[in-house]
């Protein structure tokens, strides 16, 4: 088999963070090559490098033995690279035939469209992926798996020889998976090389020929699929010592502050979550991206109110139907993606700090500028927020300092429970350590902390207990002493407790 794609020593940094530290990878014609790794191992960055969305800082990429320097997305496409994302990226209001023909037909904006050829070609390409779909259907009327097939058909139309499948089975039923695998096997026969990314490790032996493991942006190994089993893969994916020192203090835990019983929200897919957090406790919420952790936080904060089960605060049943309810009950939520909604970038540090303690519009309470200044300045000092003045718009601060302002806003409400969603995502190492220290101090003061984190070492290092979520459910809550990276990852991948024990 000839080599289609070869990457050697790819390095890519964002800001100060190295996402890829010299990764090598090879794809042969007619091969399915799986890439596995934890959240943040560098899978997406690697894919984006291949598709030309990111330019590598150094390293060589070869397609068909020809070095490709600084590939652009259109260049990569011309060389036969195509990606099928987990969420199909089609135009819902156009027909299947129109979607397939986009980018395939030559000619400018004024060319005359030949509908017959267009439909004929669409039918032929759909036939190749075994999809029984009329080219005249609107894409929004199709199911997810059907849309996926349309995408594959489209990529075949571009004569793609390097097909990247990003979590293609994440939302498919078993029968749909079987059908997809048949399509993949057929493509293999035609010499298409496929990069297959999946968190469902158990399906890899059915479909993959080789597997490459990435960890923290580094290349770990490449093995033939028949020589490796699931346990070994997980061991390689984790494979690091808990080297960073987390300032976790063991505290005597207080009474239960927040409790949920069979909490569900059909809108966001959270189902049957039973948890309890005590005063002074840090409960880590682990899981893969899309496991329902942020969704659970949003239910607890009233953003997508629960439609089943119960929330209890200090033993009393509570109704949380909007964020204002949660705030008045003493729940605080520091959201993920602070750039978008954690702080208001145009407002100064002072106004951001006091935003959550403003009463709602119905009250016409005065703003005490002196008091506001005091509060803001005390937080700036306590958290070491680096800002020239509290009158500076938060948009001018660095990510770590914005995160601290977001945290300050919520601590100003003097909450009983604080939900931290990816509190250290995208902040530098120094700020990260400071935020961890702060969390320890807050717990020591009796705050109950629910921490969502995709970083396993952080979860294991900071939490008293770890609840692992998968598919909107909490599969198991592990104690600090019994939790290991392997166990948490096994659960996060959706293996039940019984399997883990075995």
């Amino acid at each position, binding site marked *: 088999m000839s080599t289609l794609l070869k990457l050697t020593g790819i390095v890519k940094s964002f800001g100060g963070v190295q996402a890829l530290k010299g990764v090598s990878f090879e794809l042969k014609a007619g091969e399915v090559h799986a890439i596995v790794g934890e959240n943040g191992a560098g899978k997406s960055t690697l894919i984006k490098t291949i598709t030309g969305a990111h330019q590598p800082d150094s390293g060589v990429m070869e397609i068909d033995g020809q070095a490709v320097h600084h590939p652009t997305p259109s260049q990569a496409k011309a060389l036969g690279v195509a990606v099928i994302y987990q969420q199909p990226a089609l135009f819902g209001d156009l027909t299947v035939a129109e979607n397939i023909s986009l980018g395939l037909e030559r000619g400018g904006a004024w060319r005359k469209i030949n509908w017959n050829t267009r439909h004929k070609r669409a039918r032929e390409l759909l036939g190749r992926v075994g999809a029984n779909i009329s080219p005249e259907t609107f894409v929004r009327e199709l199911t997810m798996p059907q849309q996926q097939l349309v995408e594959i058909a489209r990529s075949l139309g571009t004569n793609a020889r390097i097909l990247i499948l990003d979590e293609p089975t994440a939302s498919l039923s078993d029968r749909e998976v079987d059908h997809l695998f048949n399509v993949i096997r057929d493509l293999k026969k035609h010499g298409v090389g496929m990069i297959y990314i999946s968190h469902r490790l158990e399906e890899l032996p059915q479909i993959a020929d080789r597997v490459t493991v990435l960890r923290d942006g580094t290349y770990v190994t490449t093995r033939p699929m028949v020589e490796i089993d699931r346990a070994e893969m997980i061991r390689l994916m984790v494979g690091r010592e808990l080297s960073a020192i987390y300032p976790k203090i063991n505290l005597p835990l207080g009474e239960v502050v927040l409790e949920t019983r069979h909490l569900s929200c059909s809108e966001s897919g959270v189902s049957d979550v039973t948890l309890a957090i005590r005063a002074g406790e840090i409960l880590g919420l682990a899981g893969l991206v899309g496991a329902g952790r942020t969704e659970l936080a949003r239910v607890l904060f009233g953003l997508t109110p629960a439609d089943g089960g119960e929330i209890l605060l200090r033993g009393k049943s509570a109704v949380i139907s909007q964020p204002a309810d949660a705030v008045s009950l003493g729940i605080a939520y520091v959201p993920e993606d602070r750039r978008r909604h954690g702080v*208001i970038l145009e407002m100064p540090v002072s106004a951001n700090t006091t*935003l959550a303690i*403003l009463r*709602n519009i119905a009250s016409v309470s005065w703003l005490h500028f002196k008091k506001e200044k005091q509060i803001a300045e005390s937080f700036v000092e306590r958290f070491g927020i680096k800002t020239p003045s509290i009158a500076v718009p938060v948009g001018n601060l660095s990510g770590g300092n914005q995160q601290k302002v977001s945290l300050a806003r919520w601590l100003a409400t003097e909450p009983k429970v604080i939900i931290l969603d990816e509190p250290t995502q995208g902040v530098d190492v120094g700020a990260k350590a400071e935020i961890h220290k702060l969390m320890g101090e807050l717990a020591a003061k009796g705050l109950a902390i629910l921490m969502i984190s995709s970083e396993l070492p952080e979860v294991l290092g900071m939490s008293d207990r770890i609840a692992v979520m998968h598919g909107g459910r909490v599969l198991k809550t592990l104690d600090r002493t019994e939790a290991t990276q392997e166990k948490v990852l096994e659960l996060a991948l959706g293996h039940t407790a019984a399997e883990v024990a075995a």
Partner: protein
Amino acid sequence: MSTAVLNPVGLLPRHGLLQRYKRELSVLAAYLALLLLLVVRAPRFYSSNEFKSILVNNASVLVLAVGMSLVILCRQIDISVGSQLSICGIVAGLAAKHGLPMPVAAMVCLFAGAMMGALNGVLIAFVNLPSIVVTLATMVILRESLRWGRSGEFVQGLPKGFQWFGFSQDAGQWVVVGLAVGVFAVFAWAMRNLSAGRTVYATGSDQEAARLAGIRPRLVTFVVFTIMGALAGLAALLNVVRFPSVDPKSGEGVEMQVIASVVVGGIAISGGRGSLIGTLVGVMLLGTTRPALPFLGSEAYWDKALQGLIILLAVASDALYARKKGRM
């Protein structure tokens, strides 16, 4: 580099009052330049009663612009204010004609405005429709139902206490101006000093972030539109008491003047940024250009073109400033 760009001479303190109101001050500078030009070229402008009548004629525009400032700060728009103004004027006239004492007639007028504003508010905040579409619809609906109800007829034979609130013309004029300035002052103070004011800024800056901070953006939006309506009622009153009879078309086209004043005054059309001080200067600048043109030897009909130019300049300077800021 940032301070060098924003503060080329180093004269402005970095975060002081001058810095905070830089945008407003530059509009004020433009306005003062216009006034100075009039001093040099047409001193007659000041000796005639022109300046006072500018104040009186723009009292209702100022009141509307205060409401519109809130609406735009909230990242919304209300183009139905002209129709609201017409209807409220008629309501005030009819109420007074039917023998209601003037203070009661005024309350009825404000209430009518608040109801129309609340209707907009419900549709925008709770039904979640875009404000430009909702208020375009209510603008047409209100205007056409008024045409249908009154068939263009003026309200005449008003009681004595109606025109100038029963005061002499001179005193009445000062009452009109005083009320407008009073309303402006109250709102300018409240937007800065009440927590309610800040929730408007927060909602307009980032609705989702505001919601995450425990603010109720829908409620804020609804209240803002209701206030806009009530202020349209007050503006209608200040507008119609200038005449012995009420014109059913008194508000037509006023929405554009109001929105233009707010934008020129520096409130960002994308919400969350700007101050009411700027609105005051914007109203004065646009309100002065039309009467000033004849004095400067130009035809009055150039007024609209000049106003358009001023709006473009204001918006362009905002865009340039934003680009500079984005680069640092």
